[in-house]
C-alpha cells in the first residue's frame, strides 16, 4: 500500500471523541505510521501562548495507540488495548503553531506492547516532548449468547 492509499484508509476510521474535540486529525503517513496533527487553539492552551502538557500527552498517547493499531492490523490480530502506563518527558515549550506526533512500536508481543511517541512543531528534528507507553493486549472474545 502506498502512503497515499494508507492515509485514505487511516482517515476513513473516525478518531475518538476526545481527539476530535481537540481538533486532532491524521495529517500524513511517515514510514508507514499515521502522523497526527493539531492546530493551536484555546482548547489546548496551558499558560498563555503555550501548549498544555496534558493535551500534548494526550496527543502523543493517541499517536502511540494509532501506531500500535496500524501494526496489529498488518498482523491481522484482533485485540483490545489497555494502557498500563505512560511516561512523558517535556523538552521544549509548545508554542502557538501546528503540533505533530507519531508513534513507533518498539515491541508488540502476544500480551504486551511497548510503544514510543514523539511530538514536534516546525522542526521535525527538534522534538518538544516524548512519551513511552506500555499497553496490555487482551484478545477480543466473541460475545457470549
Amino acid at each position, binding site marked *: 500500500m502506498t502512503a497515499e492509499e494508507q492515509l485514505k484508509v487511516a482517515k476513513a476510521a*473516525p478518531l*475518538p*471523541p*476526545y*481527539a*476530535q*474535540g*481537540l481538533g486532532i486529525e491524521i495529517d500524513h503517513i511517515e514510514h508507514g505510521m499515521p502522523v497526527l496533527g493539531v492546530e493551536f487553539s*484555546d*482548547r*489546548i*492552551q*496551558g*499558560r*498563555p*501562548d*503555550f*501548549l*498544555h*502538557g*496534558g*493535551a*500534548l*500527552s*494526550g*496527543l502523543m*498517547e*493517541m499517536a502511540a495507540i494509532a501506531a500500535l493499531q496500524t501494526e496489529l492490523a498488518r498482523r491481522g490480530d484482533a485485540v*483490545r488495548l*489497555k*494502557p*498500563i*502506563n*505512560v*511516561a*512523558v*518527558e*517535556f*523538552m*521544549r*515549550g*509548545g508554542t502557538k503553531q501546528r503540533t505533530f506526533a507519531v508513534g513507533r512500536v518498539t515491541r508488540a508481543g502476544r500480551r504486551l506492547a511497548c510503544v514510543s511517541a514523539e511530538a514536534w512543531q516546525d522542526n521535525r528534528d527538534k522534538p*518538544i*516532548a516524548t512519551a513511552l507507553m506500555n499497553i496490555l493486549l487482551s484478545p*477480543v472474545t466473541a460475545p457470549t449468547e
Partner: protein
Amino acid sequence: MTEQSVPDKGSAPLPTGVAFDPAVASKLLTRFGHGGWLGMRYHAHGDGWVELALPWREDLVGIAGNGPGSGILASGPIISLMDNATSMAVWTMRGPFQPQVTVDLRVDYMRAAMPGKTLIGRGECYKLTRTIAFVRGVAHDGDIGDPVAHVAGTFMVLDGPAG
C-alpha cells in the same frame, strides 16, 4: 518542558510573587484554556495538596458508541487533570506564585474510570527545592482506596536560581 495552566502576565491576573490560593486561582484556571475546555473544577486543598474535579462528559471518552470499552474517559483528560492538580499542589507549598513548567510526568492506569462518574484528581507536592518540585498524585472516581490512576512527576521553576 511545557506549560503550566496558570496564566501568568497577560491574559489573567496571577502575577509572580503573589500568595497562591487554589480556591481562588482555580476559578481562573478552570475557566480558560485546556482546563476550561475539559470542565475542570476546584474540589479541595490543604498545605501541599490540591484536589480538582473533572465531571464526566460524553465528548471526553476514548471510544464512542455502545460497544465494549465505550463511555470510558480517555486517558488524555486524566493526565491533564493530574498535571494541573499536582502543579497547583506545588504552589500551595511554595507560598508566593512562581511560574513553572512540567519536566516529566508518569501515569499508571490502575483501571478504567467508570462512565458517568466525576473524576477527582488529588495532587501532592512531597519535596521542594529552590528549582524543582517533586509531585505525586491519585485519580479516583469516589473511593480513593480504589484509584483509577497514580502519577509521579517533577516541575521546574521558570527563571529560578540554579540548584
